[in-house]
């Protein structure tokens, strides 16, 4: 779009006024004052109007982890007559330009393309579509301005950066597939479990010769088999508490990504249940492909407002496999998610609740009534925690300030003495 710059109006008004003043006052010197402005107008408008230019954004890669920088190239096609170009890259909230400068003022050589290298910082997880470039060229005298928009499509997926975990929550029961986890049952394995008298059918290599020699009767050693387990990440997206750029859903997604990565690295199967206005699930599976599947599903997670009452009945049976460990990441703000978690526990699932606390996103009110309301709400939340704990469910609060590993340790400590059941 071609527009007149403020300079054109200002110079025209000034030249006209000075000429008029020279005529009215009979002072030709005043005309001399306005003559240079009229000259700039006349020469500037006689020159060609600002040319069209196009730009294309190319990304070095389309996948990044939160906090990483990705390289980008802006290829600008300069038509004949182009000499200067202002260029701005409108970026979504989660992406910013390294160095902080969003606009570029480029010198162009007419008819020659120019490539500008940029660094983009992926500040927040999410799926983004980049490629829109705003261009502004002006004529040689700066009297006319042409604004253009180059629309390209450069998608980039920024995955949440996983936290470092020192240990994982061991599930109550393991699955029948081979893995890295020592099962509670006895069978073929490496880890020593027990010693018992020899029974017909026992393999001779399992005989504990030292003990058998001492007791003068045959004993065999038993081992725990190495098995894998199923982890279901239950992500509550009914509601979130948000303040500025951070919110409980962000924390929950980061925690989910961390858990998925670590459990999958331990050869466990990981599934995902997104429980909210939109219910989505991924059946448990193992491997790198599953990690990317989960990461992609997490990127699409958002709070969708809904009045519909939903229970865990809406989930297909294969999404909640028997003997799976369910780790719920929830701000416990919505009765539907609280009800679903209690229902899960009632059905015998091995449940852990990580309360992504919304208290971290509240401020201390000045009003006494509001302070009282906040205290009551805290008490209600404590009562809810206690209700879960009474059912043998470990509940740990996470405010995003302390490391996730600490929360996991807290859960592990609780589970050492808790009544563990499995579906």
């Amino acid at each position, binding site marked *: 779009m071609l527009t007149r710059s*403020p300079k054109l109006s200002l110079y025209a008004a000034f030249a006209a006024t000075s000429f008029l003043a020279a005529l009215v006052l009979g002072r030709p010197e005043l005309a001399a004052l306005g003559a240079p402005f009229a000259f700039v107008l006349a020469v500037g408008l006689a020159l060609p109007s600002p040319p069209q230019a196009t730009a294309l954004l190319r990304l070095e890669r389309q996948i990044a982890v939160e906090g990483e920088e990705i390289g980008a190239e802006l290829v600008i096609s300069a038509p004949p007559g182009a000499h200067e170009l202002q260029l701005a890259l409108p970026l979504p909230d989660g992406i910013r330009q390294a160095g902080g400068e969003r*606009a570029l003022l480029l010198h162009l050589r007419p008819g020659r393309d120019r490539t500008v290298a940029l660094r983009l910082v992926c500040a927040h997880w999410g799926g983004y579509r980049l490629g829109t470039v705003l261009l502004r060229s002006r004529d*040689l005298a700066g009297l006319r301005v042409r604004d253009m928009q180059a629309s390209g499509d450069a998608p980039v997926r920024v995955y949440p950066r996983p936290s470092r975990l020192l240990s994982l929550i061991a599930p109550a029961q393991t699955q029948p597939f081979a893995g890295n986890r020592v099962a509670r049952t006895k069978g073929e394995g490496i880890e020593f479990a027990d010693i018992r008298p020899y029974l017909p059918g026992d393999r001779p290599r399992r005989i504990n010769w030292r003990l058998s020699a001492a007791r003068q009767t045959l004993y065999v050693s038993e081992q725990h088999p190495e098995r894998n387990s199923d982890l279901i990440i239950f992500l509550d997206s009914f509601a979130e508490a948000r303040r500025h750029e951070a919110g409980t859903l962000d924390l929950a997604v980061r925690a989910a990504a961390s858990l998925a990565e670590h459990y999958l690295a331990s050869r466990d199967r990981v599934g995902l249940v997104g429980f909210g206005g939109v219910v989505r699930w991924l059946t448990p599976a193992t491997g790198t492909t599953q990690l990317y599947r989960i990461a992609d599903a997490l990127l699409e997670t958002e709070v969708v407002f809904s009045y519909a009452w939903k229970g865990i009945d809406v989930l297909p049976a294969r999404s909640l496999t028997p003997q799976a460990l369910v780790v719920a990441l929830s701000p416990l703000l919505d009765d539907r998610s609280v009800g679903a978690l209690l229902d899960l526990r009632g059905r015998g699932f091995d449940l852990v609740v990580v309360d992504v606390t919304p208290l971290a996103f509240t401020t201390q009110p000045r009003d006494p009534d509001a302070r009282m309301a906040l205290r009551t709400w805290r008490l209600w939340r404590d009562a809810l925690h206690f209700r879960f704990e009474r059912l043998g469910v470990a509940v740990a609060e996470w405010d995003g300030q302390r490391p996730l590993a600490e929360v996991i340790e807290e859960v592990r400590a609780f589970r050492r003495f808790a009544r563990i059941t499995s579906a």
Partner: protein
Amino acid sequence: MLAAAGLLCVLVAPLARGPFTGVALFALATEYAVAEVTGHIPAVSVAGYAVGLITVSELLLWSAQLPRSAAADREVAARELLMLAAIAVAAAVLAAVVLAAVGVRLPGALDAALLGVAAAVTLLALPWLLLRRASRP
């Protein structure tokens, strides 16, 4: 007083990005006109004043159209300074030419009247022609 207001506007304009440039230009020009009419300054000084005025305007308008945070090529600044120098020289020459033209005495009243009519028509037609041209893509 006007000069002080004009200078203040010149100082404020780069921060306010635009709106004060016009005020500064008109305030400084009015100050000059008042001084010139009251006969305090020699007529020749108009050349210097015109150069100063257009240089200040160009700089203020250039600063207003620059983005707040931008990485600029060195060539852009160099070209802009070159342009500014050319405009300053052209302004000085033009102002001198206008002043010289003031001294020209026409032989007859009819010639003077014809020249006056032509100047008036040009003056009125110029903005219309320029704006019509500017609106064309």
